[in-house]
């Protein structure tokens, strides 16, 4: 029954300064299987893959292929050991032809010159073999993303790979394209290639994978046969719960007497990122958005805030239709948005804590109404104190603060603008437990004071504690809402997993 193991990772640990990214993780890949690697944000999926492909080194543990321990110092090393990777962002050159992309770095030659004819023929043969319908002479950029993805796989396959890693290859594909990709994957599987499939689409895992390995917080949760692991169980494992002993956590939500909508979205959507949705946020209410990573929860709030301008639907603020072309318009209507990626979209790294705090209010006031130094300092001090930001001084550059404190500064930035509607996208990610609780408490306090809050988090308990209502997202679509008694871990997991919960 047990098939031949092509790749084994044993007791692998990897630490980044201050973070234990992987702790004693084992991973086994068998010949001719499709093996899903699952886990929420920060679970260590991408670190594991980077360690495997030689992008990162690792402190302890072993990688064993065909009975021999190997060390990969670079992706090229990994490739020479027969490990190829295809990423979500296709790593090919758009300006070259399909044939060149397949053969660059190892072009067929004649008298020292590139033999274009042979290259074209070999490419056509390869494409034909794998039933990829692309012309060898087409420019890569003329191919659809799905085709590019397949060409990348073809390149990997032709380089005699034994292990093929597909890192979220389906994120930008539509259903039909995904199906075609699956056909190719199954074909390779039948030829004995071991495939590691990273995705956060549950449907897809159950459609093609034989086994599932789940990681959480850098540790191995377990390896399972797909057929023996119900969906709800998988979600529970990813979220760090054993489904059998889900204690019921309930927030002590006061029942709102009257629902006064602050934000109403009707049919708002954006092509390629989120399908049209309806959404209401009421005064004094914390609404959660739940769903796995990549399910469209960030995209939904970004569309409302005007960070990515929606191309359909209408947004009403306090009952009036609003025109939101850019974030500044949303801000002027009383919105505030704490983005998911703190480093990339949140902090202005080189600016001081003070400047980071007052920036949004200053932008709202306009260029010619500069806040006085005193106002700025008072504002900064106020939020450093109330949010208990640990910083050397208010003039310290924000980049030298810890993640949790940076997040507090960004929260302070938005509270200073005194918003009616606050969007918090993963405000507690990568933050210590103490700060997490503080932020949760703060959210509830704000709601009590009448603010409308939308809260996004990968941690279900946190959402249950804070939210009185939850929108459920799946595959770029808002699929429903949970209220009342359904607001339990079990209810949420079932809703996220979709289907009948047992497949």
């Amino acid at each position, binding site marked *: 029954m047990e098939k031949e193991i092509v790749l084994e990772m044993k007791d692998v640990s990897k630490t980044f300064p201050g973070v234990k990214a992987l702790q004693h993780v084992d991973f086994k890949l068998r010949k001719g299987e499709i093996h899903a690697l699952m886990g929420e944000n920060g679970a260590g999926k991408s670190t594991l893959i980077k360690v495997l492909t030689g992008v990162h080194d690792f402190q302890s543990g072993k990688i064993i292929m065909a009975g021999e321990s190997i060390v990969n110092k670079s992706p090229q090393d990994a490739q020479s050991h027969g490990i190829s990777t295809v990423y979500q962002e296709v790593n090919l*050159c758009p300006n070259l032809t399909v044939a060149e992309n397949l053969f*660059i770095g190892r072009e067929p030659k004649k008298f020292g*010159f*590139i033999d274009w004819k042979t290259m074209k023929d070999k490419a056509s043969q390869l494409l034909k073999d794998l039933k990829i*319908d692309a012309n060898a002479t087409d420019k890569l950029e003329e191919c659809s993303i799905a085709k590019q993805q397949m060409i990348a796989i073809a390149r990997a396959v032709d380089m005699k790979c034994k292990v093929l890693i597909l890192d979220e290859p389906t994120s930008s594909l539509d259903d039909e394209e995904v199906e*075609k990709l699956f056909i190719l994957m199954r074909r390779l599987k039948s030829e004995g290639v071991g495939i590691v499939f990273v995705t956060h689409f549950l449907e897809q895992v159950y459609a093609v994978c034989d086994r599932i390995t789940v990681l959480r917080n850098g540790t191995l949760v377990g390896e399972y046969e797909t057929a023996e692991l119900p969906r709800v169980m998988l979600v529970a494992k990813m979220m760090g719960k054993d489904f059998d002993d889900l204690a019921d956590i309930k927030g002590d939500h006061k029942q709102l007497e009257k629902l006064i909508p602050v934000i109403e979205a009707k049919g708002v959507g954006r092509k390629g990122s989120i399908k049209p949705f309806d959404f209401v946020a009421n005064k004094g209410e914390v609404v959660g958005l739940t769903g796995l990573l990549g399910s469209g929860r960030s995209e939904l709030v970004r569309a409302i805030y005007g960070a990515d301008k929606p191309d359909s639907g209408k947004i009403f603020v306090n009952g009036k239709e609003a025109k939101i072309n850019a974030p500044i318009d949303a801000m002027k209507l009383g919105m505030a948005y704490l983005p998911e990626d703190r480093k990339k979209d949140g902090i202005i790294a080189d600016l001081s804590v003070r400047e980071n705090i007052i920036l949004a209010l200053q932008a709202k006031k306009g260029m010619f109404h500069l806040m006085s130094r005193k106002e700025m300092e008072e504002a900064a001090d106020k939020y450093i104190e109330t949010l208990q930001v640990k910083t050397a001084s208010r003039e310290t550059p924000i980049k030298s603060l810890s993640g949790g404190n940076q997040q507090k500064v960004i929260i302070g930035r938005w509270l200073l603008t005194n918003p009616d509607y606050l969007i918090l996208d993963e405000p507690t990610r990568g933050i210590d437990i103490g700060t997490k609780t503080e932020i949760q408490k703060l959210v509830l306090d704000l709601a009590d004071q009448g603010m409308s809050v939308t809260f996004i988090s990968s941690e279900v308990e946190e959402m249950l504690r804070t939210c009185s209502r939850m929108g459920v997202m799946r595959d770029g679509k808002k699929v429903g809402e949970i209220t009342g008694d359904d607001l339990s871990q079990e209810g949420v997991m079932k809703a996220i997993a979709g289907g009948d919960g047992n497949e």
Partner: protein
Amino acid sequence: MGIFKSDTSTAPKRKINSNTFLLMITILLFLAMYISGMIIFKDNGFAKPQMFLDLLISNAGLLVIAVGQTIVMITGGIDISVGSVTALVCMAVANQMENHGTSAYVAVLIALGIGLLYGVVQGFLISYMEIQPFIVSLAGLFFGRGLTSMISTDMISIKNEVFLSWAKYSIDLPIGSYSKKGRFIPAHIYPTVIIALVIVTVVALIMKFSKFGREVYAIGGNSQSAMMMGLNVRKTKFKAYILNGFLAGCGGFLFCMNSCSGFVEQAKGLEMDAISASVIGGTLLSGGVGTPFGTIFGVLIKGTISSLITTQGSLSSWWVRIVLSALLCFFIVLQAVLGGIKKKK
């Protein structure tokens, strides 16, 4: 059958992508300019074959330099020092031959040496130290110009006999025109044209048929991907700048054969001509796209503009630069717009 049935129908059709579109505009533009020149300035000899050959003669150096520029621009970089390298080469060559009695053969080596050295130093700073190509070559521009004036601030005319015999060796062609009395005047070219065309052909072959050439395209298309595919991005970039420096040295010498002199202000703004020729010839500023073939048309357009303006007579020579800049601006904006459309798709 293939799994992408829907796409098969469109496959055989020759799609015109935006890059070919840009090159087609360029070729049409050249033809339009040249033909209108032939019609308007018929009496000034614009219609004679010699007119076209003169374009090549006066722009042989630029052609070689522009092709070098094309290579670095395909990598996504730029080199604005080529004009001052040309001046430095001319001055060094002239000075060595006239004031130090160096033979013309050694002078060739000096020219190539200067170019190579420039390529190595700038290439190292750009590829291994990861400094913006613009800053590096801007410093290179000033460095070269300053060094030229250190050699001499006066103009040095070259009188070396061997050198002049190369420069003035006229090669008659079987084509030509008839004088008013019906006498056949054969069209002629100088060796510079042949050398330039040979170099450009060799470079074109390298870009198309060598591993190095394809790697240049790959890193310009997406250097991250190129690295992931196992190419040595830094080394390829370094080589590209060395080749560019070498070509600037060659081009500088050809330029010198045309001018037969060296002076500080020589080849001023030549970097602009080279960049314009590349961009007009279909090289993308963002890198990854461009061919020596296209650049030839870029150079021809530049040559035609200056011929038209010179022949017209009353316009000042400044117009050449202004028209060329305007054209460059037009193509840059066109690229930006087409690039934007492509991204949206």
